[in-house]
């Protein structure tokens, strides 16, 4: 399906269609709403929903941004030592993200990549192929 197209020069990055993680925010909360529907209770839906939304305004984020600008031009390895622990103490179980890049995504937390669900990727692969062949000619750019 969802093809993350990549140009020869690599200007369109994030090459492999990494799958669900790339489209989760596209899918959630979109589409027709039926008046009389029941919202199904699904295991882990809160986490999916949270991870599709980013929360910028937190002390956690500010410290990571501060670290990111502070790190510019200085590549000392230990620059971020101490900060993760500090942040862990401050965030009250909400954000679990640790320092890496300040802008590092939250996708890893969902575990969309593997092992987290029992659905195999076979169907998706085939679909992708079909879609591709349907609009051939536009990925040679």
């Amino acid at each position, binding site marked *: 399906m969802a093809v993350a197209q990549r140009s020869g020069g690599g200007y369109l990055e*994030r090459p492999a269609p990494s799958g*669900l993680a790339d489209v989760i925010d*596209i899918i959630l909360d*979109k589409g027709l709403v039926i008046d009389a529907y029941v919202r*199904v209770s699904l295991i882990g839906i809160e986490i999916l929903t949270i991870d599709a939304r980013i929360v910028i305004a937190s002390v956690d984020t500010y410290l990571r941004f501060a670290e990111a600008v502070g790190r510019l031009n200085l590549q000392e390895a230990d620059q971020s030592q101490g900060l993760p622990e500090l942040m862990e103490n401050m965030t009250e179980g909400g954000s679990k993200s640790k320092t890496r890049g300040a802008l590092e995504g939250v996708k890893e937390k969902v575990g969309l990549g593997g092992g987290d669900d029992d659905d195999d990727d076979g169907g998706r692969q085939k*679909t992708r192929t079909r879609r591709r062949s349907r609009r051939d000619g536009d990925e040679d750019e």
Partner: protein
Amino acid sequence: MSEVHVYGVVPAAAQPELEGDEVRLIAHRKIAALVSDMERGDARAVTVLRTHWRVLEEASASTTVLPVRFGTVMADDRSVVEEFLEPSHDAIVAALAEMAGKVQLTVKGFYEEDALMAGIVARSPAIARLREQVRGVPEAASYYKRIELGQRVAAEVERTREQDAEGVLERLRPLAIDARLEPPSTPDSAANAAFLVEESRVGEFGKAVAGLGRELAGRIRLQLIGPLPPYSFTGDQLAAGERAWA
């Protein structure tokens, strides 16, 4: 107890090729709902989301699909007909006609962090000054200054993102029938824009995205996702006649 999970709606005349036996169609007059039976209470969200995505992808390979909001469950086939297909029939027929031959393409941009931060420091003397003040100072001693620095940077990131997202939207809008910005989906998001595009122009659109990607290289990486069912462009029509929803 079994319930009916509703994924989307297609023209009744369509015979979408669906893998797996679990997904079936409930047809009513000119439209049909894509559904599967589900036992109550034991489903993992990730699995169901993947199914939702796959079913709509598969159906959209051969016909027009309107997505139904993820997680929609109805009691049985009869309620699907009586509470969904029948009352919304005309609106859905109209929406399907409107979406025929069109697909959604989503363009996401992601910042190169160092380039973004360097740009922000270069543009803002206040940030550059604060940055010098906290550098080399122990964490504990500069805690509040670091937060202040971070807040200023966050505001700049936000401002930059608004500009960049708008830039991507306006640049590609001429190739689309409709376009809208979606909220950033990751902290490094520079743009998250959905475009409704004629199927015949998908290739042209892809080339435009590649061209824009070349211009932005080094600062923003672009990702093109699709063709997709019209997730971001479904619902407005029905909402008008029924209840408003965000």
